[in-house]
């Protein structure tokens, strides 16, 4: 094992983002991600990067849009109500085909909600949230090490596909401490080259324009179709998930992020009690790992979704399973984190109902 550092989730993600080449950060304080923006405020000037606290999330996301127009690696972090405010800009960034990285440290909602860990922004992240036909690439880490590695992946995906990438975390991952191995700083020659479209002043070339805009519906349709061709490629190539003890599983859990991690303990409890449980843990929430769930539905007796919400991802799970086996759901809402034992009890109830 290489040398590890003990870091909080928020700090680890911030440091990893800088090592992944984030040059510019704009953000606005909101609990429970304020440690991330504070880390950036302290660290970025030390290494010659640019940090700015905006006057609102609305301003922050538009600063991101501006920075993304220049082809600079840029990101922000926020929490649920703040991400709602950013929706306008996210839609523009997706429409203008620009790379940017967002972290939503999700908290309990709706409305002001609370500041506890939740997963109730799944719909907002994966189904739109902003206006118009667009998709975000949505990633969700279960451990701090995965979150660290994911920052590199997020910037790479954003730059490769010229699309905003959203990392959905939660307050538990943000506050947790765990030893992590931090990758080295990305060398400048590994950074993307966006010379063909970025706004940097035209110099002696022809001018560049970046917009999300065409008043001619046929041309706008063409732009959207091109974007959806890109999304099709993303669905083919970029699905990421973890299979946990699925080889002999009779019950497949589906859970992501912190919930996916908590379930590993539930699964061990279930197996000690003679229920062969396993898990498919989506790492990309969009594109959703539909195929592995479809395949699992052919072998298992039940596909059970567990979320820190009233049931949002479960709709995608049910689409994938298409009625082949029962698809029960267990969740807690409002910032309540289900415990391993509690989920185990829920599993037993569902299991007894079908066997």
């Amino acid at each position, binding site marked *: 094992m290489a040398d590890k550092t003990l870091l909080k989730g928020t700090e680890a993600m911030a440091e990893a983002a800088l090592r992944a080449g984030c040059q510019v950060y704009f953000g606005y304080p909101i609990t429970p991600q304020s440690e991330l923006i504070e880390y950036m405020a302290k660290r970025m000037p030390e290494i010659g990067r640019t940090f700015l606290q905006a006057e609102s999330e609305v*301003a922050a996301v538009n600063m*991101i849009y501006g920075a993304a127009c220049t082809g600079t690696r840029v990101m922000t972090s926020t929490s649920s109500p703040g991400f709602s405010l950013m929706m306008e800009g996210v839609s523009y960034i997706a429409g203008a085909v620009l790379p940017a990285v967002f972290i939503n440290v999700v908290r309990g909602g709706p409305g002001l909600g609370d500041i506890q860990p939740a997963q109730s922004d799944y719909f907002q992240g994966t189904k739109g949230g902003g206006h118009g036909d667009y998709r975000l690439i949505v990633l969700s880490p279960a451990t701090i090490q995965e979150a660290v590695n994911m920052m590199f992946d997020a910037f790479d995906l954003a730059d490769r596909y010229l699309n905003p990438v959203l990392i959905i975390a939660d307050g538990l991952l943000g506050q947790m401490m765990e030893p992590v191995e931090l990758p080295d700083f990305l060398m400048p020659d590994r950074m993307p080259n966006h010379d063909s479209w970025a706004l940097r002043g035209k110099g002696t070339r022809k001018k*560049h324009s970046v917009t999300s805009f065409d008043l001619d519906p046929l041309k706008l349709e063409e732009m959207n179709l091109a974007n959806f061709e890109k999304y099709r490629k993303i669905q083919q190539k970029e699905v990421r998930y973890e299979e946990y003890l699925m080889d002999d599983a009779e019950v497949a859990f589906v859970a992501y992020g912190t919930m996916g991690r908590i379930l590993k303990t539930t699964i061990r409890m279930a197996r000690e009690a003679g229920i062969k449980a396993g898990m498919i843990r989506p790492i990309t929430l969009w594109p959703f790992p539909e195929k592995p769930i479809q395949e699992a539905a052919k072998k298992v007796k039940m596909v059970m979704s567990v979320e820190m919400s009233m049931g949002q991802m479960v709709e995608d799970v049910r689409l994938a399973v298409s009625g082949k086996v029962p698809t029960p759901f267990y969740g807690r809402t409002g910032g309540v984190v289900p415990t391993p034992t509690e989920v185990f009890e829920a599993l037993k109830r569902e299991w007894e109902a079908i066997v």
Partner: protein
Amino acid sequence: MNGKVAFKRPDSLTAKEFTYCPGCLHGVAHRLVAEVLDELKLTGQTIMVAPVGCSVFAYEFFDVDGTVAPHGRATAVATGIKRSLPDRVVFTYQGDGDLAAIGTAETIHTANRGEKITTIFINNAIYGMTGGQMAPTSLVGMKTTTSPYGRNADSEGYPIHVCELLQNLNGVAYLERVSLLTPKDIIAAKKGIKKAFTAQARGLGYSLIEIVSTCPTNWGLSPVESLEWAKQKMLPEFPLKVFIDKVGDVK
């Protein structure tokens, strides 16, 4: 014949024809900005941010790199560009609804940060592109499609004076209200625009030029009547003045 060019399109404008209404002064404002960019030799290093409003296509008319911001967010977008590329020249071009209603927070905070960008602010007291609705700068009593009985100060408040609001912010390096209502005003406006870009080029802070303008189409007046109306009604409400000048004399 040994001809001499007496008048030509500035290099900083494209050959695309303006799509503005007859008598609209956006074309004049565009030309002045383009002439200043030419004269200061900034064209190649300039990035512009067009707004949502009549001038949403401005990025097509200027021969510089450019984008369109969401409604009201132009100075936030410009901030993102400038902070990423501090040695470039960045300007926003915004109307009164964009800058002084939906984008008020962005306007004030960009100015307060002394963001080294330039804003060209067209004030014609009405929303043009959406069809003549009330603007934050509409005059008291002014009839618009959303104040059909005339703007009533009791319920809709008073016209907002952007320069007077911004003049107390330390981050502002150059702030002037000009107009395009007479040839003399146009010459003065160009001088102000040049100072605003000079303030940015010298890294002095935020600069904003408010241009008192007209909207013949939505005011329901001919172009000539519009100029007269603006002189009679707009200028008493929005007096022309240099509010802040940290630039000094410019050649």
